[in-house]
């Protein structure tokens, strides 16, 4: 397994952002009731993450070596502006998508998965390519998790059988727990042999 390959598999499956790092829980729990929307949000997240990785690398390489203390602020500001641009673009290109994602597009910005990506990639000292692959893996891992979750939630909501008491967040958290348990099966993948 090459390094890039391992970075990808690792963030996609083993260290899945949602299921192992608890990042991006708000959209994961908030939007995962509709499959279609989840999938689109996933795609949007992949895109924003890749852009973020690019921005983070540029900032790291050209700005932050001179002013490390600006790391957090500059990440936030740059990512927010980029997402703002994307939001405007989506509004123009696909009003349906814009409506479907509703309030969640701005939430992607203040989504800790995005900031977490930038910070983790920096902490790990990833270069440009590594950072981009990391972002791709993280975004796709997020999409995978949220799409699986949405499928399950749609199913159980149709069956509508669960006890009233547990409906809602408690239930979704426990499903996430089981999913996270299932994803533990990927631990150690490609690192044992």
């Amino acid at each position, binding site marked *: 397994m090459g390094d890039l390959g391992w970075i990808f598999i690792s963030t996609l499956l083993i260290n899945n952002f949602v*299921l*192992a*790092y*608890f*990042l*991006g*829980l*708000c959209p994961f*729990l908030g939007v995962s009731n509709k499959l279609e929307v989840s999938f689109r949000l996933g795609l949007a997240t992949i895109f924003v993450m890749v852009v973020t990785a690019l921005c983070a690398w540029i900032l790291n390489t050209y700005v932050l070596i001179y002013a490390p*203390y600006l*790391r*957090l*602020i500059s990440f*936030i*500001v740059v990512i*927010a502006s980029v997402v703002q641009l994307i939001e405007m673009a989506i509004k123009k290109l696909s009003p349906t998508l814009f409506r479907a994602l509703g309030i969640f597009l701005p*939430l992607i910005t*203040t*989504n*800790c*998965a995005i*900031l*977490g990506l930038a*910070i*983790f990639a920096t*902490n790990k000292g990833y270069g440009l390519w590594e950072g981009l692959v990391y972002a791709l893996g993280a975004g796709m891992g997020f999409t995978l998790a949220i799409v699986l979750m949405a499928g399950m939630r749609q199913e159980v909501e149709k069956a509508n059988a669960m006890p009233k*008491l*547990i409906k*809602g*967040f*408690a*239930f*979704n*958290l*426990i499903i*996430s*727990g*089981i999913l*996270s*348990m299932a994803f*533990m099966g990927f631990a150690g993948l490609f690192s044992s042999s």
Partner: protein
Amino acid sequence: MAKEQHAYEEFMKGLWRENPVFVQVLGLCPLLAVTNSAINGLAMGLASFFVLLGSSILVSLLKSYIPKQVRISCFIIIIATFVTVVDYSLAAAMPVIHKELGAFIPLIVCNCLILGRMEAFASRNTLRMSIADAFGMGAGFLFALVALGGVREILGVGELFGISLFGPNFEPWVIMILPPGGFITLGVMLLYFNWVEEKKNKLDKQLAAEAGVN
């Protein structure tokens, strides 16, 4: 005096009745990510508390100068500033804890609880009320973090704040400190809150019914 009462109300609201975690289910990411022990929960809780309090004060003070159009950006900048302050202070004063919490301190910026409070409360209320609110919400968040961290630590390693509870032969429940344990424990705690709430509602109804009969 009435004011005093009010502030107290705000505080209790955040701590229990509208607990940001157990009732409003906000700020889950930092909550789950760091609560594999009570001490980490405490540290994270205090850090968030500080950021919330500081930002609330600043936002409440500056609210009339911030134009509506850029208020979110301003809030974020303010919050990010306080987070940076916490980050550096913690790194300087408590390097061990800082290493444990790792990358999650900067992520306080994204905690929607904090931004939400700025938007919904601090930017619309007096300094005094904002402080009370920040105290309440911060304490509520802190309480949730410590509770969750405590449960996970007790079962996960058989200790609380590093003090062994069950003796050396205890079989730790490893899952509790792993990610699935975080999800499941929080889910079960929410379930418990729902249950308490429902019981209370039932009791209230019963009391009301009895009052009606009398």
